[in-house]
């Protein structure tokens, strides 16, 4: 397709006529006194009449259709949606160029490089999502992009082996339960099930689907890129709570570290924790490596914090209980297996594992009383 055949040129000329200058993604077109100046990284022409301009633009068709796609089709100047779609194809993002951000570790591509890459598809990972941006028409690219979305674990799968969707709202149902059919209240838990794909989404459709999988991640990432992320640290969030959660600001300082270690690490949540205990008082626990930030403790953490605040308000006591060394070690193995979520992986006959079900049942039969509690005597503190 040539520039003259495409529908892209007339709107570009009209924009130059109206605004005097169009400058976008390495293309600069200036119009003054019916003469045009044209500049790209490979071109620098001045004094062109319209016929000469059309000729000059002929080898620059990519710049012209790129301009139309972004300015007319995607629009949304300054929005998180636009920035995200630009990131998806490794295009420069306005306002983000001066920021050193982990999601920008790959160099951006200029228009000719991007057009080469879009023919094959450009892949990006967003949590457990893999996004491919590609041309609709690879043989005769007219700038029109579409987006495919699937689970990173399915990157090598044949599309025929996946359930294929095209409505972004289907992402809600896919995100509701994990592989084992358990409800996922935390959307950014690393438990997204695989086996599905969205193909041929529009730009808006892609962002909608991503937002259904990982709500508000695009907006907060975009704020962070512009150095505008508003972080609410633990104490601010805790002090804001009311009703039954009013107590959580009493959670001791060191317990907040334990809480972050329990809930807010990559193995439990893909958001990168940016909140600390309070400004200037950082938690010891690493916040994670994901591209999108967590700007304040989530509702799950707040709900759990209530439990831990009550627990931490209790006085420590000393108990005496009878255990063999192996049984004591078994308690550690049981807690570790539950904390790491590996109870389902322990084989039926693997009696070497302290968290093996038969071993746990034996311990209960031997050491627990009729009410199901462990037999222990509280030592008199005096």
């Amino acid at each position, binding site marked *: 397709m040539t520039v003259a055949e495409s529908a892209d040129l007339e709107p570009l000329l009209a924009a130059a006529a109206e605004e005097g200058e169009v400058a976008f993604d390495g293309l600069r077109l200036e119009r003054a006194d019916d003469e045009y100046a044209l500049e790209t990284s490979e071109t620098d022409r001045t004094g062109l009449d319209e016929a000469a301009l059309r000729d000059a633009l002929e080898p620059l068709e990519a710049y012209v259709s790129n301009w139309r796609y972004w300015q007319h089709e995607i629009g949304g100047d300054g929005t998180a949606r636009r920035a995200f779609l630009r990131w998806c194809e490794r295009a420069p993002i306005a306002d983000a160029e001066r920021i050193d951000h982990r999601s920008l570790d790959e160099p951006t591509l200029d228009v000719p490089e991007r057009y080469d890459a879009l023919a094959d598809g450009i892949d990006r990972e967003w949590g457990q999502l893999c996004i491919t941006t590609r041309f609709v028409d690879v043989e005769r690219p007219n700038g029109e992009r579409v987006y495919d979305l699937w689970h990173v674990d399915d990157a090598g799968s044949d599309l025929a082996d996946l359930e294929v969707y095209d409505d972004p709202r289907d992402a809600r149902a896919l995100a*509701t339960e994990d592989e084992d059919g358990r409800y996922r209240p935390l959307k950014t838990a690393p438990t997204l099930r695989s086996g599905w794909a969205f193909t041929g989404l529009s730009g808006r459709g892609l962002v909608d689907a991503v937002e259904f999988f990982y*709500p508000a991640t695009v*907006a907060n990432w975009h704020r962070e890129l512009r150095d505008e992320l508003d972080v609410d640290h633990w104490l601010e969030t805790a002090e804001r709570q009311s009703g039954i959660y009013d107590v959580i600001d009493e959670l001791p300082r060191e317990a907040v570290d334990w809480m972050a270690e329990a809930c807010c690490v990559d193995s439990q949540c893909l958001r990168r924790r940016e909140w600390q205990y309070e400004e200037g008082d950082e938690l010891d626990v690493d916040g994670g490596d994901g591209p999108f930030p967590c700007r304040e403790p989530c*509702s799950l953490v707040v709900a759990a914090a209530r439990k831990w605040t009550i627990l931490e308000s209790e006085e420590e006591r000393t108990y005496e209980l009878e255990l063999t060394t192996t049984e004591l070690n078994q308690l550690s193995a049981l807690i570790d297996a539950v904390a790491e979520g590996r109870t389902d992986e322990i084989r039926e006959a693997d009696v070497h594992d302290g968290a093996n079900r038969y071993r746990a049942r034996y311990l209960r039969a031997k050491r627990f009383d009729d009410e199901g509690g462990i037999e222990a005597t509280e030592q008199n503190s005096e």
Partner: protein
Amino acid sequence: MQALVIAAHGSHLNPDASDPTYAHADTVRETGAFDEVREAFWKEEPHFREVIRTLESDEVFVVPLFISEGYFTEQVIPRELRLEDWDPEKWESDGTDASQVTLEATDVGKTIHYCGPVGTHDAMTDVIVQRAESITEDPEVGEGFGLAVVGHGTERNENSAKAVEYHTERIREQDRFDEVKALFMDEEPEVDDVTDFFETDDIVVVPLFIADGYHTQEDIPEDVGLTEDYRLGWNVPAEVEGHRIWYAGAVGTEGLMADVILERAADAGADLGDAIERVRAATAVGTDEVRRETEPGTGAGD
């Protein structure tokens, strides 16, 4: 551009809690009346705290998918949305009159029209009646029938009972059902004794709850005597002490709830075109498409 945010409770434990929110949001989406429609939750994501920043629109209508004015609508939602200058007094309500107030969300600089809850809007009365129609599969239901509107009731929030009584009185004034009564789980008159309050053979029991969960799928069916164990299920209608009880499940799962959401936004100045008429037509009893999406779920609430 204008956006709609439907603000609901949600659950950490039970996916059914958010089903009605999604269903009504989709009904509104399909009208095209808003440039953006977003679900937001207290216990799920996007959280109230972060939802406004996901919108491109400068005019945002926030409709709480809650039954009554109280802790969530007066404290939690406005606080979490960072609504500057919020004060419950601005609603000028004595418990059932909240319409809307226009404020600014401080973190995003957008105009927020914060609406009263769906449960106290006059259009909610129609949803309760339609719930009776859909459970009996009779668009004319009324004559020979009693209607029990069931609320939670709680000493902590007197507005909870006010909403139930308000709609009960409005339905009574329609003179459509032989008898209409407000009953409660945690205060008098109690739903356990439902058959004592009606002379009609047929009684439709409509719980004024947003989503199906523990109360509507376990507590009430057992308390009313529809079943000895909720896990065994129950018939609709079920025979209880010589009456036929038509138990409807949470009213919030009725398709017409989308209309109440739109009415709230319209009262706050949203430009909706003919969306309200279209939603009413699409959610009328007998319209299979909408009914399928709003079938009540089961399971324990949070």
